């Protein structure tokens, strides 16, 4: 309704002013000479099994190691002679066929850790070792001047992930909200009360702005669907994320988290527990692709997990905590190409600690390559601020078209 959108604009202006920056006029990447560059990071929590995401169907040890949970070669989606994608990743596969998706089949964080929570911390903080940093690398990336000017980021979900925490203000959004007139009135009072509480003050004004933005483009109320079909909401959330990214003055970076990848038992193969979660991931990528529309050609999507799982199937039809896993890269801004990084093979002697796929590539190398060539960050900022002590992990060349 006209009344509501009028309210939203007012709110946005008011909170923008109170922050000392005018939100709507904030320079976004629209100013970038390269065009409107977008980056989406999807964190797959729980240790996603790379050997099922991109089964190495031609590796002589794959089927012996994996037994009942291996993905049969005739059902896997063939990428090349050696690798395939899980049958549930149909949309990502279509992108790969078009040269807009690639896999890095053996990536890992810089330290060998098998705790989910420590490994997620390291993945998101971007340090060279655990507890080196308490802020997130993508937040620090916001603080480094890119060639096109400052950019903003959006966290999708009820909690802000570590990867986006730090000194730069970020936006956050999750489905289910609807700002009413009552809320608008009360929010002015609260803004005064929060004046002495910087944490609440900053977060609250940013949250109201983002809601106003969502209302302006009609994010829609997903309340009913969240209740009746929570598993079907992935695509909608991704579509809304894409709307944020394509708003004038909207964020350039978005982060989503998916969970449920900790498949210690009854992991399944073509169908089953893991397959359902991979379908979810595929839906998210598809929702981003469709939602971004023409902007997709200026976008990169990274799906990454904290570590991989054991090369062997375990005793209960699942896999335990391992080391290297698959990272998925998608987006129209990617350079067409084969797998990213080397394949260490699953030969006995090549397994890390006799149990896990060994890493051949540091996740930071991919992140740095994307931030430099896609988002326009310079090497100095990357090596000193975004990924401190990472000169041994140089930016990967040739990822971006």
């Amino acid at each position, binding site marked *: 309704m006209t009344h509501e959108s009028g309210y939203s604009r007012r709110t946005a202006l008011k909170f923008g002013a109170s922050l000392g920056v005018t939100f709507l006029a904030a320079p976004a990447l629209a100013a970038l000479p390269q065009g409107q560059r977008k980056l989406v990071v999807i964190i797959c*929590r*729980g240790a996603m099994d790379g050997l099922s995401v991109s089964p190495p169907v031609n590796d002589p040890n794959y089927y012996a190691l994996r037994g009942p949970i291996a993905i049969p070669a005739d059902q896997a989606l063939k990428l090349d002679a050696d690798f395939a994608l899980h049958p549930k990743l149909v949309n990502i596969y279509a992108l790969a066929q078009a040269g807009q998706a690639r896999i890095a089949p053996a990536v890992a964080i810089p330290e060998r850790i*098998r*705790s*989910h*929570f*420590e490994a997620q911390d390291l993945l998101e903080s971007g340090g060279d070792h655990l507890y080196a940093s308490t802020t997130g690398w993508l937040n620090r990336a916001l603080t480094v001047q890119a060639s096109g000017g400052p950019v903003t980021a959006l*966290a999708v*979900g*009820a*909690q*802000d992930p570590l990867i986006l*925490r730090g000194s730069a203000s*970020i*936006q*956050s*959004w*999750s489905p*289910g*909200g*609807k*700002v*009413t007139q*009552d*809320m608008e*009135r*009360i*929010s002015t*009072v*609260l803004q*005064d*009360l*929060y004046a*002495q*509480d910087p*944490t*609440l003050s900053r*977060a*609250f*004004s*940013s*949250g*109201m702005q*983002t*809601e106003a933005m969502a209302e302006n483009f009609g994010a829609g109320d997903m*309340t009913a669907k*969240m*209740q009746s079909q929570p598993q079907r909401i992935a695509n909608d959330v991704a579509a809304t994320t894409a709307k944020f990214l394509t708003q004038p003055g909207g964020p350039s970076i978005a982060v989503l988290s998916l*969970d*449920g990848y*900790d498949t*210690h*038992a009854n992991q399944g193969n073509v169908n089953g527990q893991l397959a359902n979660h991979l379908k979810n991931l595929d839906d998210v990528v598809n929702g981003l692709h469709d939602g971004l529309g023409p902007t997709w050609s200026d976008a990169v999507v990274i799906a990454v997990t904290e570590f991989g799982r054991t090369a062997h199937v*375990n*005793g*209960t039809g*699942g896999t*335990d*905590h391992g080391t290297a896993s698959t990272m998925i890269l998608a987006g129209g801004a990617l350079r067409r190409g084969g797998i990213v990084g080397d394949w260490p093979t699953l030969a006995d002697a090549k397994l890390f*600690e006799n149990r896990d796929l060994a890493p051949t590539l540091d996740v930071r190398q991919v992140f740095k390559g994307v931030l430099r060539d896609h988002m326009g960050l310079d090497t100095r900022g990357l090596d000193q601020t975004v990924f401190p002590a990472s000169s041994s992990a140089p930016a990967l060349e040739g990822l971006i078209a």
Partner: protein
Amino acid sequence: MIASKTLDGAIAVTRFGLGATPGELADAADDPRGWLKAQITRDGAEQPQGSLPGSVARVSDLIAYQGEIAPLRRQRKMAMTVGMVGQDEAADEHAADELKQERRAALQPLLEGVRDEIFARTRLATATAQSFRERWTLFWANHFTVSTAKLQSAVLVGPFEREAIRPHVFGRFEDMLMASTTHPGMLMYLDQAKSAGPNSMAGLYRKMGLNENLAREIMELHTVGADAGYTQADVTEFARALTGYSIGAKNDGPDVQGHFLYRPLLHEPGARTVMGRRYGQDGEDQARAILSDLAASPKTAAHLAHKLAIHFVADEPPPGLVARLREAYLASNGDLAHVATTLVDAQECWTPDARKFKTPYEFVVSGYRAAGASPSDPAKEIVQPLTFLGQRPFAAPQPNGWSDMAADWAAPDALVKRLTWATKFSAYYAPKDGAPVDVAAATLGERLTAAARTAIARAETRFEAFSILLMSPEFQRR
């Protein structure tokens, strides 16, 4: 420092407790520390009330459900193998939908049971006169997280908390650890029940094998902590020792079904070495000995002390408090009543500034308490709002449970969601009697600031005044 007694009363009820109900501040003000200590009771926590089946009954429901659903699955599989699937897409979709519907129908009673548990537990939290006792309990329930993230454990989350956690919250930590590790809820949630040693009978002749999930999380999350210096070999050795820890199934007979069952045929034979110590025991006692040593470890004491101090005082807890709690744990052999008493007596817990930001569950519960109300509709009043606020009860996404840190909960979107809830809640529950400033004073006592008092006094309606109270910084924090 001469602390005001009434301020201490407000701290006791809001920081240690779950927020004031009308009149509660007055009860606590006379002797705040005594009021808290009276809640430290050897018999453990209060139990949620209602018709709540235990784990044995729930396992039997689960088995019945699987019995109902298995033939449907078989039919579908059969249709697939004989090629009935894949010929007519519309018919396939219809068949798949039908299977889903039947599954959903069979699931319904199971899910209603979960809802009943959430309802009973939340009503207890909103109404109890001993809310420190309940907060302490919620801390331990979260420490030993079992989640609805998996169906098998979903139906057991409630029974797990009532059977393995609540009785032990003021007993010895080792007893709670043992109760947790042998409870069907935990055995299901962390995939222990079917883990078999490679050289056990089941490993050698039935191709069963090891699953190291529970072993790792016990070390990392429940006891010594991730930084304790153990290796992958320690985890694997502990996992081998734990083999055989299982649950009675249908074939084991009605007296055993749904109970903890040690299965010697799954147990890896031989001695184990974990964190430098050798365990030569046979069978079930081997893992018990390791658990006992883990519970007694100074690293466990430090890990728990740190977590407790974070929960009760600040995200970056005072080192002195952490050290005192650790000593209390070690000196008392892990007696949690003694640790709780030490916490109440510690000066660091009574600083006037409220540094803890409430989790969504704490926020909602304290809202009901401020209104002197209890929820009456579990879906609309508890599950839905808490899902939007990011903390669906019993559904922690990962085994480390819910975070206690402001950085995780004070996100921009989260605050807007809190305001959404506060206005909806106030529309129904804003107290109808008394001046709104008096309601605020009865909720926060001396913690109510002049600014919030003025804002509440100026509000046009009771609804607006109560919304502002709920969203005030002093109510959001504790």
